[in-house]
């Protein structure tokens, strides 16, 4: 496949690895923001091939993992009550709420549907005018345009029985939260390529400036990741802090303007609670006033309840990079993909799931 096989070429990978081994003289800790990058690193066995002194820390870029327990409970409530159809991306279904997951609610008779696109949910609402159709709009800046578009379309088509339960989070504020944490150990970031495809690169300059931290916008294939790591290490070794774009074949400086406009039409930036991390100011999107009627929270009068997390789950410290999944006493014993204590064990982008599925050969 064009643009995939070239970036999975074993020869090229080893050239980058050799260069990385030559370049690295000191220990560095680098965080890859996106869970897709984490999975690629683990799935391809890259972590074991890196110089021993480079520590990769798996960031909070797993939308499923950072969606607060309260919102998952709201989604389950909507699926079980109000006689509606709750539509969701597949990832969210196995994540445990306070009492159960959406998958368990579905097994008990709730109408929960897995969709790939929120526009399908609008279509579903048109086909079932007598029922309320709610789309569980989860994600970073990447999924926000399509979710916003579904609302714009519903308004245009006069679809009255469609709404979204928004749980959108933003990358730059999360990076700032990590960097300003007194326990921070991160020397450099690999920023999430797909997020930057939408938002462009500009918003990372202030972070680089303020914290003097190298940020390399990076893709997801083995060669992408190794290039990104090498670019970060070169900066660190020289004592530089710049914004660089490894993923230039996809990411442009201004991003996708049309997508940004669509986001701006429907959403406004607001404070947001991150599961396992806490509240980060101005780090999420809420449905704005002009589209209030499509906001499931307002339509069904939901009031987000702060809910106590399972104390046995260390997801928060894992996402801040302070601990690794293997450090958790419950990893693989009390917490497995079938019986998860927390979201990172079940999301396809979760660090614990990546370690559980792919990394045990290295550990044993």
């Amino acid at each position: 496949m064009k643009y995939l096989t070239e970036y999975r070429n074993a020869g090229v990978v080893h050239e980058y690895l050799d260069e990385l081994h030559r370049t690295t003289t000191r220990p560095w800790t680098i965080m890859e923001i996106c869970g897709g990058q984490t999975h690629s690193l683990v799935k391809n066995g890259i972590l074991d091939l890196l110089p021993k002194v480079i520590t990769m820390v798996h960031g909070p870029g797993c939308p499923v993992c950072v969606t607060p327990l309260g919102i998952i409970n709201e989604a389950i409530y909507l699926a079980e009550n109000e006689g509606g159809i709750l539509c969701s991306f597949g990832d969210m279904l196995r994540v445990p709420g306070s009492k159960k997951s959406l998958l368990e609610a579905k097994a008990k008779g709730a109408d929960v549907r897995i969709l790939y696109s929120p526009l399908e949910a609008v279509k579903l609402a048109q086909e079932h005018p007598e029922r309320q159709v709610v789309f569980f709009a989860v994600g970073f800046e990447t999924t926000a345009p399509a979710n916003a578009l579904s609302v714009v379309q519903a308004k245009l088509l006069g679809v009255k029985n469609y709404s979204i339960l928004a749980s959108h989070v933003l990358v730059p504020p999360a990076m700032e939260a990590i960097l300003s944490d007194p326990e921070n150990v991160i020397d450099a970031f690999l920023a999430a390529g797909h997020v930057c495809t939408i938002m462009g690169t500009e918003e990372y300059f202030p972070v680089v400036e303020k914290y003097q931290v190298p940020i390399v916008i990076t893709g997801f294939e083995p060669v992408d990741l190794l290039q990104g790591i090498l670019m970060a290490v070169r900066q660190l070794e020289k004592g530089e802090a710049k914004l660089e774009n490894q993923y230039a074949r996809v990411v442009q400086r201004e991003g996708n303007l049309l997508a940004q406009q669509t986001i701006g039409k429907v959403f406004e930036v607001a404070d947001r609670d991150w599961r396992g991390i806490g509240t980060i100011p101005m780090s999420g999107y809420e449905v704005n006033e002009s589209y209030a009627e499509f906001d499931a929270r307002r339509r069904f009068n939901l009031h987000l309840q702060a809910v106590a997390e399972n104390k046995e789950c260390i997801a928060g410290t894992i996402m801040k990079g302070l601990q690794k999944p293997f450090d958790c006493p419950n990893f693989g014993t009390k917490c497995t993909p079938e019986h998860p204590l927390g979201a990172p064990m079940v999301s396809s982008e979760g660090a614990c799931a990546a370690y559980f599925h792919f990394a045990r050969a290295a550990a044993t």
Partner: protein
Amino acid sequence: MPQLDFDVITLGHGSGGLLTHRLLEAGVFKLFGNEYLDEQHDGALLDITGKVAFSTDSFVVSPIFFPGGNIGSLAVHGTVNDLAMCGAIPQYLSLGFILEEGLSMADFWEILVSIRHAADLSGVKIVTGDTKVVDKGKGDQVFINTTGIGSLHPSANIHTSRIQPGDKIIVSGEVATHGMAIVSVRQGLEFETDLLSDSTYLNFLVNKLLDKFGRDIHFLRDPTRGGVATNLNEIAKKSGLGIHLQQALIPVNEQVEGACEMLGLDPLYVANEGIFIAIVSPDVAEETVEVLRQDEKGKFAAIIGEVAATNPGQVVLSSRIGGRRVVGMLPGEQLPRIC
């Protein structure tokens, strides 16, 4: 299509009364007629001597018609292949229907014709059967159960206990094609592709291997649900040996790989219906692949790894770039990802 009074299945068609009688007479018996079925007895009386294999499978695929096949052809292939994997020559099938009230008669007929066609091609006879109808909403159009019997091939000795370190692992064709053809037409997930399911009968191909290599074929498995990864995990656990795969050697159709990339699915966990895994003695491995490749159904056959005493009970994959990882069992269903 015969005249059947109604254009949909009604509860009456499962009542055992006149409507059932007419449906069976005009539809089933006429279409599948053979010396066993024509008896119209409560069961079939069969002449079989020696060791037999016996297998059953239920089919609930949605949608019931998919690119490259339908639930009817699948129901024949599934059980025929299960028997073949035991080292048997499939001979007789039973055919049980659970129909949902309201199923279109034209769809039912099309399914019946596919069953006949698949049975003829794979050399099996439908010798007994059953039809029930459930209320609308209690089923999903049509569910089928087939059970099959076949005599064991004289040279077959297929058992996990025969798997040895050093044995080679062969797949007879490209993985994940059937599952992705189904996913491509599922509601909510439709995407444009010309992928066809590779669902087919594999018994003659397996026969050819048993004729030629006999006891050097140590184990056979059709990796249906859970895909190649889950099935190899079962084999690793049962045999107490390690299975080592080379990602670069696993044949995957380019469109299938692209669709898996897009949807966030791993082809190793996607269901198959038109391929099998053979675990064979290293002495005959290359030749086995050659024999498979001479057949249309085996043209993409490849050695994808080998059995070892290391990593007992585990499947370990060497990635294209040389990293290693464990390939676990699929927990529940593979769910599409967010981004």
